[in-house]
């Protein structure tokens, strides 16, 4: 029998035994493990359901897409991935022919005959896109191709029978795809870079059904080793096609990217690391602590740590404390945050009585004038967000740097004049419901908005918070027109302003992405006229006109793009991206050989 003091010693030994270096796993550890932190977790890993930035991040590493963006080129540039070249496009822009690489195989899986992955073919791509139009898939990407690919919507209307051929989406042979569009759609190739367009095997879909979302069977550079609510571990796909990395082809700029050490990657064959460990850490403090403890290589710095990380805001400068060990990048988000007026609500939007319609317009304009973007930026975006008038963010080429900023300039006198000239006073101002999903930050943002409005005499009790338990509930409410003031955001799906301009296109009204339910025939005409155009001065001019229409109609209090700060360990040779390159960059991440790691 142990004596009392021996028990005490044993207890201390047990606790001490747990300290220090992580215990050995017992197996042979992979040579290079890149550890990445994301501030959210993916749901489904089925490409057809890769709606979130987090899901997309993983899906493009597990599956193949026809195209991707060049790793280093900014502005972003398309490049073939599984396709052998950019599409051959007919003169009228309606017919596209795409050839895909031969000798690319799906990962071995029991779904295949004898458990051995078969070759990826053009039929797989056709099947993968058709899945979005099959209600059984519960797919989320159909909007990308709806009414755009000949026969696809009809195929769905006729029962989504995969045995039936879609005239506009055909595999001419095993390695040639032919797409016929109903109208020119210059953004098509961009849509083929999305996780939604990743290629799945029919056998896997049929074997796993809905469970495919947790059992990916792809042909991407990595395979899924494990995944739970806090982490996904991906291991290098040894069968992934061997293509040497070419700096020039990836858009390398030695002047701006030279210090990242990327030159050593030239002619090496990606993926360079053996394993990816992607941590899903939603809590800012936990993410920061994990980064501080060197448990992860990369972090999107939480706003609460901006003061710790930065020594200067304008221009942004990294604190000397971090300068030696970390690379740093400030990245303007390709999207924006804005507040829509529900134009379908007669209290503030369109009204059948022309006079009231005019008064409502004046009220919206007054509220826009009363909004203080400077304070919003200072309090919630550390003063480094990019404020811009309307819906053309600073990060896109269509942004007019020399344009007027009157729309985002606070002018209380002008706001009050709008109100008084149109007969508005504190007695007759309408009660407005400001919607948001339940969170402390959202509540604070609401309170700030209300205080701005109180400055023009809007009674506090007439701007009511309308709080929803989840974002899904909030989305349902505003999609059904039950919210008057819709606080929302948009992240661009691809680097083309069309993706933003469609936010106010009439036919996209709620429940579509036009949550304001804005309807202006002039705007719609311009949108339709521009839809066949590639990025060009002509199209930029049209988009700026559309932006002006929105501002004249006072449809939205808009907007601000966040500036995100990335910090990563200098040992990791990479240029991270959270935007259009997104998860694709993971295949190009490299680390020193483990023996050389301190």
């Amino acid at each position, binding site marked *: 029998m142990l004596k009392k003091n021996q028990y005490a010693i044993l207890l201390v030994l047990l606790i001490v035994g747990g300290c220090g270096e992580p215990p050995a796993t017992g197996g042979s550890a992979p040579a290079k493990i890149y550890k990445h932190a994301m501030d959210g977790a993916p749901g489904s890993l089925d490409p057809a359901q890769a709606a979130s930035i987090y899901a997309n991040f993983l899906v493009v590493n597990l599956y193949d897409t026809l195209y991707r963006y060049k790793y280093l080129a900014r502005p972003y540039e398309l490049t073939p991935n599984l396709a052998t070249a950019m599409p051959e496009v007919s003169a009228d822009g309606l017919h596209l022919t795409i050839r895909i690489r031969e000798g690319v195989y799906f990962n071995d899986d029991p779904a295949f005959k004898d458990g051995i992955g078969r070759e990826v073919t053009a039929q797989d791509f056709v099947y993968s896109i058709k899945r979005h139009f099959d209600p059984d898939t519960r797919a989320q990407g159909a909007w990308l191709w709806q009414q755009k690919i000949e026969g696809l919507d009809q195929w769905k209307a006729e029962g989504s029978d995969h045995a039936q051929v879609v005239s506009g989406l055909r595999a001419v042979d095993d390695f040639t795809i032919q797409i016929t569009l109903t109208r020119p759609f210059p953004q098509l190739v961009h849509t083929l870079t999305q996780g939604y367009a990743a290629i799945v095997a029919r056998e896997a879909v049929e074997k796993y059904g809905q*469970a495919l979302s947790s059992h990916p069977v792809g042909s991407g550079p990595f395979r899924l080793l494990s995944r739970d609510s806090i982490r996904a571990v991906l291991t290098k796909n040894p069968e992934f096609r061997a293509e040497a990395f070419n700096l020039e082809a990836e858009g390398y700029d030695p002047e701006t990217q030279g210090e990242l050490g990327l030159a050593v990657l030239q002619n090496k064959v990606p993926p360079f690391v053996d394993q990816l460990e992607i941590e899903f850490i939603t809590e800012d403090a936990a993410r920061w602590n994990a980064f501080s403890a060197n448990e992860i290589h990369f972090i999107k710095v939480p706003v609460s740590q901006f003061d710790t990380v930065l020594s200067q805001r304008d221009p942004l400068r990294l604190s000397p404390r971090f300068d030696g060990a970390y690379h740093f990048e400030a990245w303007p988000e390709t999207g924006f945050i804005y507040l829509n007026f529900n134009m379908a609500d007669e209290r503030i939007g369109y009204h059948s009585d022309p006079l009231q319609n005019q008064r409502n317009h004046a009220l919206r304009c007054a509220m826009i004038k009363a909004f203080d973007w400077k304070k919003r930026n200072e309090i919630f975006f550390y003063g480094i967000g990019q404020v811009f008038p309307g819906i053309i963010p600073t990060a896109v080429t269509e942004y007019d740097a020399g344009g007027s900023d009157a729309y985002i300039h606070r002018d209380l006198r002008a706001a009050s004049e709008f109100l008084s000239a149109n007969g508005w006073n504190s007695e007759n101002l309408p009660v407005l419901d400001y919607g948001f999903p339940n969170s402390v930050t959202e509540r604070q943002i609401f309170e700030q908005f209300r205080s701005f409005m109180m400055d023009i005499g809007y009674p506090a009790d007439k701007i009511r918070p309308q709080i929803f338990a989840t974002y899904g509930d909030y989305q349902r409410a505003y999609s059904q027109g039950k919210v008057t003031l819709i606080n929302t955001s948009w992240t661009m799906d691809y680097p083309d302003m069309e993706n933003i301009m469609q936010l106010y296109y009439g036919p996209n009204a709620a429940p579509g992405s036009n949550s304001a339910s804005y309807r202006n025939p002039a705007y719609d005409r311009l949108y339709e006229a521009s839809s066949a155009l590639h990025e060009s001065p002509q199209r930029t001019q049209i988009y700026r006109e559309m932006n002006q229409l929105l501002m004249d109609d006072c449809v939205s209090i808009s907007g601000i793009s966040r500036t995100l700060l990335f910090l990563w360990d200098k040992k990791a040779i990479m240029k991270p991206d959270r935007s259009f390159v997104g998860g694709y960059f993971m295949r190009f991440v490299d680390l020193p050989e483990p023996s050389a790691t301190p």
Partner: protein
Amino acid sequence: MTNTHIAATGLPFIVRRFLHGVSLMLGVTFVSFLLMVYFGPDKTYELLGKNPTSTQISEVRHTLGYDQPFLLRYGNYLKELLTLDLGLSDSTGEEVKSILTRTLPISIALVLPGFVLGNIIGLLLGMLAAWYRGRWLDKLLMSASVVGMSVSFLIIIIGLQILLCTPYGLNLFPVRGWQVHDLPSYLYYVTVPTLALLLVTLGYNTRFYRAVMVEEIDREHILTLKAYGTSPVELLFKHVLKNSLIPVITRIMFSVPFVLVSGSLLLESYFGIPGIGLVTFNAITSGDQPILKAVVGLTGLLFVLALMLTDILYSAVDPRVTRQ
């Protein structure tokens, strides 16, 4: 105890408790399902793509089963619980059963040391404080308890992480993770969460157990034993503790379901531990009904089992309960 005695008292009592438990389960599942359906989050819009049409909205609602009559859905729910065929998560597509079997053991392993130590140490400190009631040790322990109860769990977690897990402190343990395969790795990952749990629960436990013990110490038979010269240790453990077991058992037993299912949410979230608390939280915020239904069913079942077990333990420590 003879067989006749069991037949006359124990068995009918257990059967009674079982039947009571079944009716309780039906009630719990019905009310919670009602709340889930009419007031719970709606997953439809999270599963829709951009620019959805009304047809697409109806299709998603149909695949989620939202368009079925309430009673049919409730009937299906009971069937799922009985057959343990809990379906697939609406978010990840993984089998709910496999999610539960993967995460529940992790949560148990995570909270068990803190739960056990928290109760044992709390009990001992409570007894000590009760014995020295009104004196400096009692005041010190009660003041420390109030401090422990007042500090936010979140602050304790973040503080311990900085202190024990980062280069700004001792850097002895990991901030996140759960790669447990043997005792040293278990201790490596569980120590800091356990300390956090201990710090946050010890105050509550100590105050509760002190109150229970004080009531018992004041009884006449304890005074008599003191007069006989019984040693304090014997007095506290053999007489005071034994006679206080009913409230002690009640507290411990009814903490078990809560601790297992939801009590570890913050720990799991901040320490990156893939347990059932985090899965439940994600299911609540995203409206993942298959997971929610399973967790609600499981929690109900645990409570009913705790109730039954508590009654049985009551009868073991105080036979008068069975006779009543």
